[in-house]
């Protein structure tokens, strides 16, 4: 194994979930049984797509104004930065998010949860981070919802994020949670991350400075992606 293998920062043990995690029943027929093969990073892994305003426009960073009226539920501001491990911002990267509405229902044909849809809430948005890696969405606090992983199981309230970063190796899809949610301790998806600190970094932080008086609560969520190591691969 050469130093080239680590041209992109690697996660530490326990920081990323393993797919073979039986408590999450959907893994049973879908998780590969063979261990993934470690390969040296090449240009293929160390490069990645770029997105411009052709993709991001029109901005859908305000999810509360999808329909004719205003979405129902607690308005929240979700803001943060996309960074690389060494703290460098990831500017102009595509960030997509999606979520259930305040009642815990997704605008998705397969979601059969008996909770109301909100004609004024789609629950999907995207934006490019600014040059300093900042993003900001206005949305609605998502509701918890039941799922059939086990009897009477409920997903904690969460917002899904998809982020690209600067390389294919940095690609991340994750979920952001909310502080103080009693469902977190019971949730196999959340608990699939072995490292407790890593798990807790998926919980957003209530930020009174971000809240807007008489309008919306602010939650801060930073996303840290794998960056290049100090010894790059002479690309």
């Amino acid at each position, binding site marked *: 194994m*050469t130093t*080239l293998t680590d041209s*992109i*920062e690697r996660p*530490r043990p326990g*920081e*990323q979930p*393993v*797919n073979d*995690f039986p408590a*999450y029943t*959907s*893994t*049973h*027929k*879908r*998780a*590969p*049984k*063979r261990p*993934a*093969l*470690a*390969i*040296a*990073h*090449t*240009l*293929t*892994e160390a490069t*990645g*797509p*770029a997105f411009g305003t052709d993709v991001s426009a029109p901005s859908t960073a305000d999810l509360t104004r999808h329909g004719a009226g205003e979405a129902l539920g607690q308005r929240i501001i979700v803001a943060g930065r996309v960074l690389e*491990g060494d*703290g460098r911002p990831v500017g102009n990267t595509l960030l997509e*998010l*999606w979520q*259930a509405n305040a009642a815990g229902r*997704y605008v*998705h044909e*397969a979601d059969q949860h008996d909770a109301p849809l909100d004609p004024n809430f789609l629950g*999907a948005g995207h934006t490019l981070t600014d040059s300093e890696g900042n993003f900001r969405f206005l949305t609605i606090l998502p509701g918890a919802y039941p799922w059939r992983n086990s009897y009477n199981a409920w997903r904690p309230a969460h917002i*899904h994020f*998809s982020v690209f970063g600067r390389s*294919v190796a940095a*690609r991340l*899809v*994750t979920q952001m949670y909310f502080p103080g949610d009693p469902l977190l301790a019971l949730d196999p*998806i*959340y608990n699939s*991350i072995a490292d407790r600190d*890593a*798990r807790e*970094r*998926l919980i957003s932080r209530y930020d009174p400075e971000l809240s807007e008086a008489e309008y919306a609560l602010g939650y801060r969520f*930073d*996303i*840290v*992606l*794998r960056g290049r190591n100090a010894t790059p691969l002479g690309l």
Partner: protein
Amino acid sequence: MSNLTSSQTVGPFFKFALNHESWNDLTSGGAPGERIRIVGRVVDGDGTGVPDAMLEIWQADASGNYAPGPAFRGFGRANTDEDGRFEFVTVRPGAVAGSGPGLVQAPHIALTVFARGLLHHLITRVYFGDRADDNARDPVLTSIADPAVRATLIASREPASEQAAPGGPPVFRFDVILQGERETAFFDV
């Protein structure tokens, strides 16, 4: 070592947010190169099609360069249908520089798979069955000892009768087998 953000599953309910009909066609910018279609199916450990998977590809242009631009983004996304089927239309990538002096990688496409039940996305590579000589020298393929595992990374060129239109782009088949004896080789990158 820093504090990286952990992955979580894409879940079952993402299509309404992440589906862009046109993103599975990488040729709309008019990129030069040989047009190809890549078709396949994502199946689970029972051999059942996975209807709620999302696939993303990343590839070099026809000259073997990773140089995304308006003519060729190099990136594509497709969702599976109710039978787990997916399709990309793209240009055949050129050979790409390897990770050391003098090393050349056979033409290939990086393929990422997201689905409910996958807590972390899977990463694999699509190589081309009609480039056997290049494949035999590829550093990643040759690092895999078991020929049966290696074979899971080779897209087979379909007979001309499988083409959507006579004289149309060649069709390559690449199935993603998540689990089981013929499980696709996935990479830890």
